[in-house]
């Protein structure tokens, strides 16, 4: 209950307050969101498997986000930022789909 409420409140806060993002961070926010989505789906799958831990989830969430942003940042520094961001999105998308398949199996047994 708290989780759903917090998610909705967070989205509402982000839209309503319109926090001014630092200009250097605007490139990395979409990548960070995709990484967070991957962490969320991984957590859901782990929960269905019965191996969920909120502590592990929190750590993996932030580490995922930071690593994704770091990879794109390094790519920007060496001139392949757009390609590396594409690569990160592709890899995270594959992971999201894999996790989604596992979740689907857990829910529908198919």
């Amino acid at each position: 209950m708290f989780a759903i409420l917090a998610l909705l409140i967070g989205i509402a806060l982000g839209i309503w307050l319109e926090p001014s993002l630092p200009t250097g961070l605007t490139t990395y926010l979409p990548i960070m969101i995709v990484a967070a989505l991957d962490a969320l789906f991984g957590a859901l799958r782990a929960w269905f498997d019965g191996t969920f831990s909120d502590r592990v989830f929190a750590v993996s969430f932030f580490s995922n986000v930071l690593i994704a942003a770091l990879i794109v940042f390094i790519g920007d520094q060496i001139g392949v930022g757009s390609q590396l961001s594409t690569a990160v999105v592709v890899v995270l998308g594959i992971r999201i789909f894999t996790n989604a398949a596992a979740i689907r199996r857990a829910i529908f047994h198919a």
Partner: protein
Amino acid sequence: MPDESDVEARHAADDGSVAGESHGRSLRDLVRALTRPSASQILLAAVLLVFGVGVGTQLTTKAADDPYATARRADLIQLLDTANAETSRLETEIEALKATRDKLQSGVDSAKVAQTEAQNRLDNLAILNGTVPATGPGIRVVIYDPSQKVTASTLLDAIEEFRDAGAEVIEINDSIRVVASTWFGGANGASSPTTRRSRCPWSSTSSARATLSRRPHASAAGSSARCSSSAAR
């Protein structure tokens, strides 16, 4: 009822590997867990709050900003170069088209001026040549020659004096127009302009016009002069 806090975190939450001894959960368990708040959900809620703020921020940023705000420096430089090249190309085209336009305009003007000049010359030459009728203010000179003293050369001198004075159209005896090929001959008192022989009385109508732009449109006013009568005007 299994709670998520009871489970040992042997696997990373986002790990793809399946736990060996874990018992599977169903959708009903998920709904039940989400609808029953527990203390262990606080951390999860905090993480999701951060995630929600990020998503909301990204949504508003995406909606508000122009596409160049998140573009990279190399892309921006390329866009700028493309725009500059396009601008210079279009400016070159503008210059060429302006030059063409000026050329065409000046050509039209010069052609018009040349046509006007040619028309003026044509009018003047037509009047001098006697191919078109002429009308306008002028003088009438009547020569009385009772003693037969006027020679052809005298008459020619008179015509030339008229010409020098500015006469453009000269008519003799209301019937003979003096042109470049007119000649005078014969004995005293019987000088004949052109091929026709004219008798004693010389009635020369000289039309001196002040302006060259006037268009001749009517035939010369005709008036007869008799030998013995004065028709001076």
